[in-house]
């Protein structure tokens, strides 16, 4: 229907300010070096939202930045990895120094928890993690992260029950959305469809704002209908320095620079945050400092060659 469009466009400043509170559980989009919501993560850092719990599957740059900026009290995820660029070093460092609480799950377990949240059921069974330390060794402060039960339909069949997860707010960067929040994700979608549909509030940034008539003519392209979305921000390059399918490849140089600073920590890392976030008036200024127009052009061209 949508005879009238509910316009949900606003600035990132407004969206993060309005929807995220200190202490919230934040669903984080993207995976590894693909479609990470760096634009929205930068804005959270800028607004210094504190005591956050971050949840997702493979969390990389968004998580590492927020941990590095000392805004995170806990993570619940499947991994902290930039793949060939290494571990999420600020996160690693925080765990090794007991600065944050951590709850480990497998990727399927996290996706299943979001699925349960998205369906309004309180928990969901899994046959993963059995027999391993994921079910034995717990970080001391965590609440009951699972339950083991018997399958009522089969003898001697232990089943893991996982609690549903409904993040307070999710932040996700996508290819396209319309003003009312109909979301189009192209290429891999990782844990995002289930996470978005499970979330109480959802903030979407997109490479390109599209017309609702385009949405209605392509129902098979719609990943998430507008009823799940609360804010939409058009931000080209909003996933930089990670890749966005159909738009641009990841920037190896800047990711390597980040990883080097994150691994070093201390002043080197705070210099990075100052230079690229605190001292930048906008995300555009960051992208300009980090890459510049000719690098961006080549990342775009490099993607186009692969389609």
């Amino acid at each position, binding site marked *: 229907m949508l005879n009238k469009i509910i316009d949900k466009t606003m600035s990132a400043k407004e969206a993060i300010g309005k929807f995220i509170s200190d202490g919230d559980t934040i669903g984080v989009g993207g*995976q*590894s*070096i*693909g479609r990470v919501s760096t634009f929205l993560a930068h804005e959270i850092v800028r607004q210094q939202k504190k005591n956050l719990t971050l949840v997702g*599957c493979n969390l990389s740059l968004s998580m590492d930045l927020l941990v590095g900026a000392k805004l995170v009290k806990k993570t619940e*995820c*499947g*991994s*902290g*990895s930039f*793949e*060939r660029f290494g*571990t*999420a070093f600020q*996160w*690693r460092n925080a*765990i*090794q120094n*007991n600065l944050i609480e951590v709850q*480990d*799950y*497998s*990727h*399927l*377990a996290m*996706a*299943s928890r979001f*699925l349960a949240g998205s369906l309004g059921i309180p928990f969901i069974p*899994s*046959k*993963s*993690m*059995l*027999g*391993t*330390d*994921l079910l034995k*060794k717990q*970080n*001391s402060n965590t609440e009951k992260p699972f339950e083991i039960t018997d399958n009522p339909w089969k003898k*001697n069949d*232990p*089943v893991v029950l996982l609690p549903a997860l409904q993040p307070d707010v999710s932040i996700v960067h996508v290819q396209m959305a319309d003003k009312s929040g109909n979301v189009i994700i*192209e*290429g*891999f*979608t*990782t*844990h*995002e*469809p*289930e996470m978005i549909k499970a979330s109480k509030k959802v903030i979407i940034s997109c490479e390109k704002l599209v017309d609702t008539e385009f949405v209605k003519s392509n129902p098979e392209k719609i990943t998430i209908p507008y009823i799940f979305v609360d804010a939409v921000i058009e931000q080209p390059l909003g996933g930089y320095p*990670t*890749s966005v*399918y159909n738009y641009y*490849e*990841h920037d190896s140089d800047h990711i390597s620079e980040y990883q080097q600073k994150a691994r070093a920590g201390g002043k080197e890392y705070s210099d990075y945050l100052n230079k690229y976030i605190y001292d930048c008036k906008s995300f555009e200024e960051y992208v300009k400092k980090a890459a510049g127009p000719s690098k961006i052009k080549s990342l775009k061209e490099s*993607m186009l060659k*692969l*389609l």
Partner: protein
Amino acid sequence: MSLRFSLDELMVIEASRQIEDENIVLVGTGLPMVASLLAQKLHAPKMCYVVETGNIAPEVIPTPTSVCDPRVMYKAIKHGSLLDSLGGILQRGLTDIAFLGGAQIDEYANVNSTAIGDYNNPKVRLPGSGGANDLASHAKKILIITRHEKRRFPKNCDYITSPGYINGPEGRKDAGIVVKYPDIVVITNLCVMEIDKKSGKLVITKLMPNISIDDVMINTEFKPLIKSYVNVSNPTKKEIDTLRKEVDPYGVYLKDT
């Protein structure tokens, strides 16, 4: 035999030989991706490549470096979600082969990718399970490709992230894992080890060319079983050529000798 090759190359080639035609293979990037693409180009043309991030049956463009790489999305049948790959295909029981990596592999083929030292006070925190626990729990056959270093093969993992046979032949059954007795094959640059289903422990089944049992033992902290073993077949010219020219033409993962 004038064909020159490295043991790293042969390790990947030997892994590719484990894959049969029409197999559904769940794989990320790195050497497992190289091995599976090689199999597809050689003897498993109908293999179905599934990526954890949700891409099903792409025509992979050489040479992807990430599970989010557009090169694993080209002409995919479907761009699904992680739940589709790890739930709807893997946990559903449809995955023939899954590849694993990890910092530690013990004698029961359990794998640690979570933490070195005490979990609650780790010496080194590692990236964590990712999909590895799911792969190890639900695939019918598990392949592990790794360079052979002593510290990678301890008697016991500091933390079991992904289940091998846990603590013996019935370890998986007792834990309630659906796939009770999977094949597990560890392929290194020194040897091939497989799970012995009587003991649930790794046994050396093949040696790489010019490698002795002693070489393996010196580089392995636990004591792998030894029964009968053979040599890994040398690569054919076709295997080497396909690997170098079609699968990893830019030497992203393997430099030729």
